[in-house]
């Protein structure tokens, strides 16, 4: 049993499992893509309304190029961190950097396993799936109770708390991961501090773009340190 547990995801039943994850992941994601398109199509058919072509074209031109570019970069950045099952789920359910990935990271940290291991794949998928289910159910509850909850949700006293989710989240996560990987953490943290403090355009709206920059920089620095025998 232990041998099987320790085996790489590339061998034995692990390979079958991974093939199954990819097969079902493709089926689910492509199905979700189709039904997401079905929403505006169905609304149009039911209410006999065609899209405004000028609005559609100009709206896409103003919105899509940036988000397509970010989407492509995010896909290549996050897949190695989320694992296969976690990736298929996260790119459908969203909130990757502020919810799904921290959730997976916390699960791996608690269990003391590496993300690229067989166990890591299982645990990160479980964490992300549970997080997606809970998020969906809480939103359903919120929608059902939106009218009575509105005064509480829009209470200005609570505004600062919800405005500071990311600092609170990455303060807690950061202290764990930076302390465990301090050698490879120094250079990217220093670079990001310099960039974010000195360039006014870098803010909450652009932090997503800086994630791949920081990841690539960290990989380069780590590779150099590894080659020099410092790690």
């Amino acid at each position, binding site marked *: 049993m232990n041998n099987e547990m320790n085996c790489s995801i590339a061998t034995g039943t692990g390979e079958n499992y991974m093939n199954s994850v990819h097969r079902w*992941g493709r089926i*689910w994601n*492509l199905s979700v*893509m189709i039904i*997401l398109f079905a*929403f*505006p199509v169905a609304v*149009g058919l039911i209410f006999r*309304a*065609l899209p405004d072509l000028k609005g559609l074209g*100009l*709206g*896409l031109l103003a919105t*899509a190029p940036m988000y*397509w570019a970010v989407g492509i970069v995010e*896909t*290549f*950045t996050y*897949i190695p*961190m989320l694992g*296969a*099952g976690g*990736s*298929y789920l996260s*790119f459908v*359910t969203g909130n990757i950097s502020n*919810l799904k990935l*921290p*959730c997976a*990271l916390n699960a791996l940290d608690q269990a003391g396993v*590496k*993300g*690229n291991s067989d*166990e890591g794949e*299982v645990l990160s*998928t*479980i964490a992300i799936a*549970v997080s997606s*289910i809970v998020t*969906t*159910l*809480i*939103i359903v509850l919120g*929608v059902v109770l*939106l009218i009575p*909850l509105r005064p509480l949700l829009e209470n200005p006293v609570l505004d*600062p708390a919800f405005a500071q989710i990311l*600092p*609170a*989240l*990455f*303060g807690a996560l*950061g202290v764990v991961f*930076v302390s*465990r*990987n301090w050698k*490879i*953490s120094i250079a990217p943290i220093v670079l990001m*501090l310099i960039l974010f*403090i000195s360039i006014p355009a870098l803010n909450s709206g652009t932090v997503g773009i800086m994630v791949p920059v920081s990841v690539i920089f960290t990989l380069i620095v780590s590779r150099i340190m590894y080659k020099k025998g410092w790690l």
Partner: protein
Amino acid sequence: MTFSVNHPILFVLAGIIIAVVLAQSVFFLVMAWRRGIKMGMDKKKLKRVAISAAVFTIAPAIAIIISVATLSKDLGIPLPWLRLSVVGSQSYETIAASNTMEAMGNSLGSGVALNATQYVTVALVMTISIMVGIWLVPVVAKKMQSGMITMEKRDKKWADIFSASMFVGMIAAFLGFVFCDVSSVFSGDMTGLIPVLVMLVSALCMCLSGLLVKVFKARWISDYALPVSLVLGMASAIPITAWLS
């Protein structure tokens, strides 16, 4: 049929799609759980991970409800409910809706109710503009995973460092973001320090949790360390903001 942004049919349509997305999560959860059991992983360990993930999710999910409430003023409840239950965010949906409404000679937040044509157009732009990840993952995930496995076979130590570097890189970007407004302090505006202090409170809570685990040998504390630190960090933002604003 007269259109309204809160028409019951829109709730039904959004509900059906969200149910499918929920089913995908349940499907992957069951598949991973069975795989874990088959590998000989302790059921208690799997349960601990699931419970911790559920508890951790509560605060960020409430933030998403607030986004739904904000967007619902212009777009009704069903569309924000759908968009924020799948890949989407308040900032993205607002940008997509604003760009589209402006292209149609209107503006979001003008108080004028959307008609069916505007609604369909906005929903299409929102859907198309953020679809990349959903179709790109099925195209590249298997190849990328094969690459990771090849790297692991070739050099296990570097594969571990590679994985840790990716996590550290992501965290470093967000730590940098926490300091993005800190230079405002030099012009007398102390609000730039709010995220920094919140981050420190949260980090301190995490350190204290680690200390408690060691002192009392209570491993269960570590299961809730992240969600508790997150909520305490967020709660600290209320007095810190009142102090520095």
